[in-house]
């Protein structure tokens, strides 16, 4: 993308260089071609402020130099001699004449350019003119070409040398090449400036940095590039507009202001490029630049209003001094901190400064007439440098953006890896914690269950007073506890039905051995969600305790286990028909375990019916 733009730039550069090297050849007065006559001498009648003078004249005639910027009329009479009536068609080439004019040959009106009765309107001095001559008008001997002009103030009015001759050399060799340089050249330059300006403007509009402060920041370098090129486009376009939309006064001010606007914007571009916008010592430079534009506006307005061009000439001299100082400072800054863009712009600025100075001398001071400005060509350099920098900067910005996208992706990936490792670590911690919990549970289990039973068996043996059946019961309890503990490993959390079934399976042989009838009234009950493995084990202990109490103390004939779900609330009951106990004296082990698993414990006891009830929900 950028490579293609670079090639295009190189081609433009080449074209511009060729144009520049060819330009002096076009600008230099061409030697009269074979069969043509250059008309230099004659007589002029001038009318300024109502007074008419007749004088011999040697062309070119620069009206402003002759009349100090006063508008007026002039009639040039240019005699020439032909040996014979020409056989081929002839034509007249006028490199420059204006502001408006009529061309007469042997008292016949050949062509009218603009309205001689109206001043400050059209300006035909901008483009070279060609007037074909009807064959019968020329005669052998004395002929007389008459050019009548109306000259506006400070509009480079006047008449250049006129060439008359056979149409083929005059039109094709002289007029067409001059026209190409003056008119077509202006069109191309305008188009080029418009393109560069549009690119810069588009970049200025679209390349928005979301600055850290939150407010959107555009790169003003692009803006100044665009403004410079648009000013210049208008200024150069003037070269092809013979009849401007505004009267000369306003139009002239506009053109001068555009010229100054171009210079100031280009300087602002340099100012940005040199990084002076970030330096407090250089900030003041913006004010003289603004002053330059305002001053040009004022000076051109005064010059045109008073019809005294030296106001503008003088102001432009000041301007050139200021620009020269600025360009000098920029060149120094560039040498101190060079880079390709700055070197290019500095070179373009120096060339432009030189050309601008030359133009000021030639156009505003010297008597030469028919000369054209050089700055229009050097400005192409400037435009190319500007375009190159703008594109390079855009390229750099997009590379940087790509880089930051990649960096961002890398950071996201990095963060993801960190997260994954943190997650793995957390998972490991959770696993360790679960294992620790499980280990603690088993230890507590062994301590509360088997351990305490075995140690009480040992105490019973040591005391020497324990009856064998007591010892046997203790040891059986111990083994039952162990079996229940093993069962509890596989109990699904919350499945109270499974817990009761396992409990029955483990304890029924003991009950049967003790001669206690067993009744099973267990409905299918829903899972009690809040019972985790630990709580299931607690519930097992609790029920074991309750059944164990019946076995040891109640002297019951029947033990009944009930389970039911009332409106979603699970209720478990252990009922016996033994002798009962004081229900106000709730056994501590039962109360503590019930509280630990959040079950409502209710005791009810009288001889013949004791109910231990656990409610969940």
């Amino acid at each position, binding site marked *: 993308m950028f490579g293609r733009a670079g090639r295009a730039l190189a081609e433009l550069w080449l074209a511009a260089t060729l144009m520049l090297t060819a330009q002096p050849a076009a600008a230099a007065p061409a030697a009269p071609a074979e069969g043509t006559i250059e008309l230099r001498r004659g007589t002029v009648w001038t009318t300024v402020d109502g007074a008419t003078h007749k004088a011999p004249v040697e062309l070119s005639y620069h009206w402003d130099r002759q009349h100090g910027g006063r508008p007026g009329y002039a009639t040039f009479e240019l005699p020439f001699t032909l040996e014979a009536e020409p056989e081929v068609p002839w034509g007249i080439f006028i490199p420059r004449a204006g502001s408006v004019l009529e061309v007469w040959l042997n008292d016949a009106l050949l062509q009218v350019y603009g309205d001689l009765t109206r001043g400050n309107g059209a300006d035909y001095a901008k483009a070279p003119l060609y007037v074909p001559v009807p064959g019968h008008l020329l005669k052998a001997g004395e002929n007389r070409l008459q050019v009548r002009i109306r000259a506006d103030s400070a509009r480079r009015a006047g008449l250049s040398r006129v060439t008359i001759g056979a149409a083929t050399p005059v039109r094709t060799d002289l007029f067409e090449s001059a026209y190409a340089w003056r008119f077509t050249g202006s069109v191309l330059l305008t188009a080029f400036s418009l393109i560069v300006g549009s690119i810069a403007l588009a970049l200025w509009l679209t390349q928005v940095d979301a600055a850290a402060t939150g407010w959107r920041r555009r790169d003003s370098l692009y803006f100044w590039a665009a403004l410079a090129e648009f000013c210049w486009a208008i200024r150069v376009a003037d070269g092809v507009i013979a009849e401007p939309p505004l009267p000369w006064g306003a139009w002239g001010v506009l053109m001068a202001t555009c010229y100054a606007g171009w210079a100031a914007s280009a300087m602002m571009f340099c100012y940005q490029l040199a990084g002076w916008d970030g330096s407090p010592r250089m900030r003041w430079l913006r004010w003289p630049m603004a002053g330059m534009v305002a001053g040009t506006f004022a000076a051109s307005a005064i010059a045109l209003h008073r019809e005294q061009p030296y106001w503008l000439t003088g102001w432009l001299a000041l301007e050139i001094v200021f620009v020269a100082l600025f360009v000098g400072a920029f060149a120094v800054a560039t040498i101190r901190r060079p880079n390709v863009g700055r070197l290019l712009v500095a070179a373009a600025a120096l060339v432009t400064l030189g050309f601008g100075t030359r133009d000021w001398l030639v156009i505003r001071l010297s008597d030469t007439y028919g000369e054209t400005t050089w700055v229009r060509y050097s400005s192409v350099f400037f435009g190319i440098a500007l375009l190159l920098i703008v594109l390079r900067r855009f390229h750099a910005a997009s590379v940087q953006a790509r880089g930051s996208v990649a960096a961002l992706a890398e950071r996201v990936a990095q963060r993801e890896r960190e997260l994954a490792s943190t997650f793995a670590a957390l998972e490991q911690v959770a696993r360790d914690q679960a294992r620790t919990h499980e280990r603690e549970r088993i230890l507590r289990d062994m301590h509360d269950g088997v351990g305490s039973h075995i140690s009480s068996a040992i105490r019973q043996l040591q005391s020497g007073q324990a009856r064998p059946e007591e010892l046997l019961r203790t040891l059986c309890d111990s083994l039952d506890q*162990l*079996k229940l503990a093993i069962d509890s490993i*596989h109990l699904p959390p919350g499945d109270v039905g*499974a817990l*009761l079934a*396992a409990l029955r*399976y483990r304890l029924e042989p003991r009950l049967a051995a003790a001669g206690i009838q067993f009744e*099973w009234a*267990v409905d299918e009950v829903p899972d009690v969600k809040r019972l985790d493995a630990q709580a299931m084990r607690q519930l097992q202990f609790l029920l074991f305790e309750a059944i164990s109490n019946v076995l040891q103390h109640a002297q019951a004939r029947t033990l009944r286990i009930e389970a039911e779900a009332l409106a979603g609330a699970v209720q478990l009951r252990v009922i016996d028909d033994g002798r009962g106990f004081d229900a106000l004296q709730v056994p501590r082990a039962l109360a503590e375990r019930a509280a630990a698993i959040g079950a409502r414990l209710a005791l009810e006891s009288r001889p013949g019916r004791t109910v231990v009830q656990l409610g969940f929900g």
Partner: protein
Amino acid sequence: MLKPMNIEATDTGKTHRWGVLVVEDDSRARAFFEASVQRSASLFWLGSAGTVHEALAWMAQTTIIPDVLLVDLGMPDGSGLDVIREAVARFPGCEPLVISVFGDEENVLASIEAGAVGYIHKDAAPEDIAQTIVEMKAGASPISPMIARRVLAKYRSLQLAGTLAAAPPEAALGTTTAPSLLSAREHEVLTLIARGFSYAEIARLKGLSVHTVQTHIKNLYGKLAVHSKSEAVFEATRLGLLSHPG
């Protein structure tokens, strides 16, 4: 370590007496089982083995087919499961029982799948041990609610796998066993056992005899063993260890 066999007892008495072989590494336990067997009129003592090796050797050279095999799973030189498999393969009429302290699910299920038809608790009273053996020979099969629950869970997962595998015809070997693993009645009985009901209570609830309930369970044991075998064949076929039948 083999005890002399009580051969003369085989033909005495009118009722059939069952020959019992015990494979158990703890000598006191062996003595306890021997005493239990000797005390029962319905059983006679074939002998005992203290290691897997001894048990296999005994089976390789015996002329008397054992009716009942009591096997401890944790042997010093291997697993009692190997003894169960060998015994079932060698003597189709032989019914192995696993000796278990806890009757815990893993071991019991593995034993059933190896061919055992039940288990006895090591801490049971001596008369209960003989009783359990005799009842087992008469058609009873003990099963705990926990094991019933596990069998049901396994059945459900098999059914799920069966419905998933029903589409490819190659899976016929695996699918034929799964749906027929449990009959509706067996499923019903098993569910009640898992909920803690005793055989007698189930018989009363369902209007069956206790014997029928027991038969259901015993059939179930057989199915589990067969199923585990076909499962192994299916696995082996799938892994390419056996050529596909047909």
